């Protein structure tokens, strides 16, 4: 493996700007690495070198400028890149090429980045293991019999396996943070409204956020700095200034108060996860922060609340996949009725989990059930937000595990939706409350599987999260560990 494939995005950009490397050379080396590793890990659905090289050639003819000059960025298969297929890892969107680029893609390209590759995911981001993809399962680079987490499993696995310098993912209930934790990389879900959703194919519009999956905290700060900010094309994006996250990374964290919600440490928590979190708390104290237990009483209701709101919105967001305009259309020849086209297209185009969630959401919104389910869920969502408001009156940041367990085995939970849904127990509340949350590596199990810790902050205080994470990262070496299974393919 070429040495500089292990570089962070920031370090790579520096070398490229200095002219020590050429964007096209980096792309070719990366493509070779992907060709070696992807048959094992299957992080990428597709990686079109030709189009990336065309873009690199344009960059090479111009000035070596931009925060991400020449850096290849992998993109989850639910973020639209102009002219390229974007299918949400679903059969129903097979062949769909967006005629426009997502705002985040435009912003990355404006800083010189090169979009390279479609990263695998759970179909429409419905899952926590990347097993629901219509294009095959992604494997955890640390143990190829295990899942990488999900739904941004392809993005996390690619970064962990040095098959990507950095990737974009999306997070509706933990889809960036949980795979980041299970693959030993950094994953950041920004505050709802911090990053434009224009061009992100919606799962649950009130919960979705795009964010980076990176090798370290500095890269997370760098990517966020580039993609964040108000977008007139997204009414839900906040009209607020974006601080320079990279410049503020080294700010002092001494005296900060960290709350540890006790509800996150209950039954179902793996002992090794619990121990790693305790050690992480001690580390933060050594860095001058004060950790204290805090209670967030509505946490136990988060999963039920989430699976009503998220599925309700999803049932409506996915209604457009009907075979009329784009993507898959199934008809059985002449004389097919409109209804038959709808039914067959959706029956064959959507996977089992997508159908389950559409049915759940349709049910929750139906006459006679709306008040008892959807409306009640909205009320509980407000209570969960208030838990956070209260905690943040006293604490600068909250510390929790990212996932209650390390990566589980492929097939272990796929036939038991409820146990799969519980994988998101630590991450879901941040989406319901709209607060920013970051996962970073904080240990390895005895079996050598990565563990992640989650930092949650006040709305739009990503800078604070990144400062704490950076201080922790500087004091530890977890982020430097590499999975051996894919070290020499």
């Amino acid at each position, binding site marked *: 493996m070429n040495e500089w494939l292990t570089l962070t995005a920031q370090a790579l950009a520096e070398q490229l700007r200095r002219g020590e490397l050429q964007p096209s050379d980096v792309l070719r080396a990366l493509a070779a690495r992907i060709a070696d590793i992807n048959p094992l890990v299957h992080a990428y659905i597709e990686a079109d070198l030709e189009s990336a090289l065309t873009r690199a050639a344009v960059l090479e003819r111009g000035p070596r400028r931009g925060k991400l000059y020449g850096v290849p960025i992998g993109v989850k298969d*639910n973020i*639209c890149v102009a002219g390229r297929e974007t299918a949400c890892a679903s059969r129903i969107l097979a062949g769909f090429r*967006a005629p*426009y680029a997502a705002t985040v893609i435009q912003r990355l390209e404006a800083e010189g980045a090169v979009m390279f590759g479609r990263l695998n995911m759970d179909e429409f981001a419905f899952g926590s293991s990347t097993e629901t993809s219509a294009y095959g399962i992604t494997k955890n680079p640390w143990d190829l019999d295990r899942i990488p987490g999900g739904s941004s499993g392809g993005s996390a696995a690619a970064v962990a396996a040095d098959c990507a310098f950095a990737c974009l993912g999306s997070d509706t209930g933990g889809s960036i943070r949980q795979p980041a934790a299970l693959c030993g990389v950094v994953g950041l879900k920004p505050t709802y409204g911090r990053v434009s959703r224009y061009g992100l194919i919606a799962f649950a519009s009130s919960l979705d956020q795009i964010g980076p999956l990176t090798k370290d905290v500095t890269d997370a700060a760098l990517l966020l700095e580039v993609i964040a900010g108000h977008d007139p094309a997204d009414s839900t994006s906040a009209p607020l200034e974006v601080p320079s996250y990279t410049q503020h990374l080294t700010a002092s964290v001494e005296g900060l108060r960290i709350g540890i919600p006790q509800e996150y440490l209950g039954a179902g928590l793996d002992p090794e996860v619990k121990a790693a979190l305790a050690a992480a708390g001690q580390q933060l104290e050594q860095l001058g922060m004060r950790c204290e237990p805090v209670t967030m009483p509505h946490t136990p209701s988060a999963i039920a609340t989430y699976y009503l709101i998220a599925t309700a919105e999803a049932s409506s967001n996915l*209604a*457009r996949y009907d075979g009329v305009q784009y993507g898959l259309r199934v008809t059985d020849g002449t004389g097919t009725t409109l209804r038959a086209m709808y039914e067959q297209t959706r029956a064959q185009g959507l996977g089992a989990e997508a159908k389950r969630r559409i049915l759940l959401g349709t049910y929750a919104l*139906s006459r006679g059930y709306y008040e008892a389910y959807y409306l009640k869920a909205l009320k509980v969502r407000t209570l969960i937000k208030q838990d956070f408001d209260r905690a943040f009156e006293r604490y600068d940041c909250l510390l929790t595990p990212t996932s209650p367990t390390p990566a589980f085995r492929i097939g272990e939970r796929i036939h038991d939706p409820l146990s799969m849904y519980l994988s998101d127990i630590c991450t879901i509340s941040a989406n319901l409350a709209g607060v920013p949350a970051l996962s970073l590596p904080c240990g390895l199990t005895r079996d050598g599987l990565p563990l992640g810790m989650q930092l949650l902050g006040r709305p739009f205080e990503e800078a604070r999260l990144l400062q704490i994470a950076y201080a922790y990262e500087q004091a530890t070496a977890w982020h430097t560990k590499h999975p051996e299974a894919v070290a020499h393919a």
Partner: protein
Amino acid sequence: MREAYETVIGLEVHVQLNTQTKIFCGCPTTFGAPPNSQVCPVCLGLPGALPVLNRQAFELTLRTALALHCQISERIKFDRKNYFYPDLPKNYQISQYDLPVSHDGWVDAPLEDRTVRVRIHRAHLEEDAGKLLHEGVQDGSLVDFNRAGIPLLEIVSEPDLTSSEAAHAYLTTLKTILQYLDVSDCNMEEGSLRCDVNLSVRRAGAQALGTKVEIKNLNSFKAVRAALVFEQHRQQQLLDRGERIVQETRLWDAKRELTASMRSKEEASDYRYFPEPDLVPFEVARDALERIRTTLPELPHARAERFMQQYGLPPYDAHVLTADKAVAEFFEATVTGGAPAQPAAHWVMGEVLSFLNAQQLTLARTSLQAAHLARLIGLVERHELTRPVAKEVFVEMARSGQDPQTIIAAKGWRRVADPQALATVVDQVLAEQTQSVADYRRGKTTALMYLVGQCMKATRGQADPTVVAELLRQRLTNLMTKE
């Protein structure tokens, strides 16, 4: 017995707001563009695209709501109405459910003998769907999404109307108000004004409302009226026979002039409304609302009142003149141009409106100028032009846009009042019309009017009828005294 029933009618009017661009994207709203030429990822509902509310559409909504005396909701939010149909790109429509922009207003609609106050239940903003095309397609249908995302204001009345005439008056008044506000073209042919009606009948004096039937596919005010008459009759007959009325949606068939069942309530969809998460709820700034209120134009009702007071016009004339904003403005411009109010009113209600009706034109599409009409009326009032000639001048004016003096000079149409100049004509008519002369001499004085008419005809209307009558009378008296 027919009289034993009361009819209850409510109307849902969809008004296309005349914004430059669509409600949630920047696509133009021009009517009649080639299919699918005014579309983008947002109005096509492509994956990942997001709506952004058009400020102009919202302001036009507020303008209308204030003019309809509505309460404006403090918090504005949108909802998704979920249903599958191929003209609906997202398979949901962005609309408003429990919090319409405005609610609880009213409109006063003048009937011949009284005014009926119609309460407005709500007026809310939503996006239009595309259009299915079936003609000339062999297998299946085509969709034109140009209309998808055009802003619509849905105005729902309370069931305060009791007859098809009242419903027609309400619609006319509403259309006039919308035109005065300049918020919509209100062109039914182009679909910028659409109307669904709800009608039920009940025994006279009954408290509870009868079973409601909704009628769709009404493409003109005439169709609304005809459909209401038909449906009222149909329901009364059913009740006469002791049958029950089914709650359903019926379609008006304009060719066969009847309503036919489309779907019953049991088949009605559950739209699964829920708050649109892609649009953030917002508050209406009270000062912005007041600013809009101060820019509201004088509305038809107020203008009619003013016409009565300021110009001394009878109520009927005032309402006719104000029923169309352009006509009302033309009338006032004619007065400003120097014409006395009452003749101006008669000219506008008579010649101007008949000309527009006959030519199927709107004022904007003619060459008519109020200043020219004022001058023409001046000529008639000063007896420099006879009324019949003036009417001919008017037609020429409307056609060519020239001023009356130019037309009169070119045609040589000035009034002739010189008795010497008229003597020849008068003598000639008397010589030809021996029967009428005999009648007059037998004491039938009306024969004189006939003879005046003949003289007018012979001079192509240029002769002053008063002078002609005087000449005739002199000559006839002379004839009789000679004998």
